[in-house]
């Protein structure tokens, strides 16, 4: 006897994928039937794309695009309303002396501070992303996780960043992980759902690919690498696996889903390497904040400094951008 996997509208999925989520056993067969990921090969490819030389107008475009893709994040126990308001101000006008600097995509906070962020960003068009589901470990009951989501949504968050249950995933209880993502998706209402896989805890690229497909099948709008609380956080090869997954998803379904690496991306150089991967692995369609985000805090200031360097022809130093 197999339980049917819950509620999601499967009518839109092509036959092969609809079949994959028929029950626990088919989901398991599907995920284990995905082609493997060769570690040496993917790391070699990531390193070789990392040598692209992005200069001049292409670099300036990349910097502005990267700024517009930042989910400006603060996820600390010490976060206060004041800290969140400061971040919101930064999100609206990242470089006050350069009003042509694009605003970031969203501000990312804990759910109890979402309302403050929503208030501070009202009318700006900047999203509020709230982590939820007992972030970062995800170790709690489903009712608690859903209550966490409800708080975020009630507070006005336009995006919810959930964590998957890595314990259940590593135990092979894929159906449970799947249903939890579906339940969270349902609780999100109109809010976009980003599904954090915490790739640093999954151990292999094969698992990362399986988790990405699981999240896509369950209705996640974005797949996200990490919470930022576990090392390693985002890596270039790990992000390659996610970009390949959304590309394959597009090939199979015609739907565009997004990718968000988070944690450990601190410099403009790093950000450009990620954009090159987006461009060449997923495709140019993904070069938009609607489909690619950076989860980051210190990255924004480096992007601003490099933007000034590009425009002024000289480097201006860290005191010329705001520390928030």
């Amino acid at each position: 006897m197999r339980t049917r996997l819950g509620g999601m509208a499967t009518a839109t999925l092509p036959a092969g994928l609809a079949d994959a989520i028929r029950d626990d056993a088919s989901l398991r067969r599907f995920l284990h039937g995905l082609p493997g990921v060769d570690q040496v090969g993917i790391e070699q490819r990531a390193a070789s794309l990392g040598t692209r030389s992005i200069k001049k107008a292409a670099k300036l475009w990349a910097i502005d695009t990267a700024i517009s893709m930042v989910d400006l994040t603060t996820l600390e126990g010490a976060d206060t309303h004041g800290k969140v308001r400061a971040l919101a101000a930064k999100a609206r006008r990242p470089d006050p002396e350069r009003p042509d600097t694009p605003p970031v995509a969203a501000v990312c906070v804990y759910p109890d501070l979402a309302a403050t962020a929503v208030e501070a960003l009202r009318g700006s068009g900047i999203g509020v992303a709230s982590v939820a589901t007992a972030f970062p470990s995800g170790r709690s009951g489903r009712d608690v996780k859903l209550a966490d989501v409800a708080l975020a949504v009630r507070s006005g968050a336009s995006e919810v960043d959930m964590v998957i249950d890595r314990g259940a995933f590593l135990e092979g209880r894929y159906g449970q992980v799947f249903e939890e993502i579906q339940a969270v998706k349902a609780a999100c209402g109109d809010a976009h759902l980003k599904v954090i896989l915490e790739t640093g805890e999954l151990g292999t690229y094969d698992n990362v690919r399986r988790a990405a497909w699981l999240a896509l099948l369950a209705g996640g709008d974005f797949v996200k690498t990490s919470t930022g609380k576990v090392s390693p956080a985002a890596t270039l090869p790990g992000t390659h696996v996610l970009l390949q997954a959304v590309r394959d998803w597009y090939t199979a379904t015609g739907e565009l889903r997004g990718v968000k690496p988070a944690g450990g991306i601190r410099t403009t150089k790093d950000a450009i390497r990620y954009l090159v991967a987006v461009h060449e692995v997923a495709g140019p369609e993904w070069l938009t904040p609607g489909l690619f985000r950076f989860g980051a805090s210190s990255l924004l200031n480096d992007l601003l400094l490099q933007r000034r360097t590009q425009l002024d022809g000289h480097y201006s130093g860290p005191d010329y951008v705001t520390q928030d």
Partner: protein
Amino acid sequence: MNMWEYAPAPESRDIANLKPAYRPFIGGEFTDGSGEPLKTINPATEEVLAEVSTASASDVDKAVRAARRAYDKVWGKMPGAERAKYIFRIARLIQERARELAVLETLDNGKPIKESRDADVPTAAAHFFYHAGWADKLDYAGLGPHARPLGVAAQVIPWNFPLLMLAWKIAPALATGNTVVLKPAETTPLTALVFAEICRQAELPPGVVNILPGAGDIGAELVNHPDVDKIAFTGSTEVGKLIQRSVAGTHKRLTLELGGKAANVVFDDAPLDQAVDGIVNGIFYNQGHVCCAGSRLLAQESVVDELLEKLRYRVSTLRLGDPLDKNTDIGAINSAEQLAKIRELTESGESEGARRWTSPCPLPDRGFFFAPTVFSGVEQSMRIAREEIFGPVLSVLTFRTPDEAVAKANNTPYGLSAGVWTEKGSRILWMAGKLRAGVVWANTFNRFDPAAPFGGYRESGFGREGGRTGLEAYLDG
């Protein structure tokens, strides 16, 4: 804006220190050759790079006599530890002049700067470092306690990896105490002549290395010279056969590294995305001018459609253009002659009924370029499945079972390399035992290391280069 054009990021051609004229290197001196001078061109622009004075038959004789003298008087009897010092010095000088050599190689050959910078030049230096380490340890090479050098080595190399093939040839010869007369390819003589400068910088005794630019006739003079003891040739199977005929009945030792038509075998349980990268690397690396290129893709029928869809997308992202641009993936075809050969063979593929797909990438107005091309529906009987194209053209065939994969992979007169893609370790080992190829790569392709012997079976030649085994070609046990 959703289109991201990478701005041109060209490496400066000034770094190459290009000179208007280059001359042969004989007996430690650059001297005017008495052959007909040749003009070497940049295949990416068709402009003349430099005039190169070439060797004549009498220059060949002079060079062989210089090499013999250096062998008898200095190099052959020098202790290995002393020889090693020179070879280490050469390796370090290659590293010091790496950028110059990389840019010069790209100008003369047409290959992308990222390849000459990240592969050709560093691997050339690595070959000298590796073999320098052997020079005083030859008693432990497994050839007995009294392994002796052969004498004067005549070496003829191709145009696809000019400096790297030079390193593959000269490093083991010097480490084992032989002296060298080397002829670079007619279209790519420049880095070899800068290497001659490096030999002078390293104060290598005169005559130990001699470099003779010239065409095939000079190569023939060199291998037919009665006073050479050893011939090492890398190039076409056709010329390899001529050489083997000409040395029959002489005392000359011979190693040949010739053509190939390698099979890259992809099973349905392969890591598909990395297999796609490996296929791309196997056939489009260095514009497919690689003797061990994976020019025949053998894909299991149950996965061929998915594989081809991924492959075409991946190939369409390859950037073709100015080889000096750091973002270029596919550079220029080395010569008009080679381009004509590639065109002729691809036309035969179309007329024999294979389905052609060519990357929609734009081609520059000038220079010799050929867009990456994939033929599907290729049958064993077609020319594009049997003949070496030596260009960016992949032939895709299919198989149903592992036995059929082996049979098709081996059904070629060549046997240089092969690739196997599967997540099943036991199948990799089984395939490696069955494939008649000198090198079998598993879940990767075109990986080279000075410690790994390289060489072929059957019409791909004999003898090994690299590793301990490679020393045998230059020693009498």
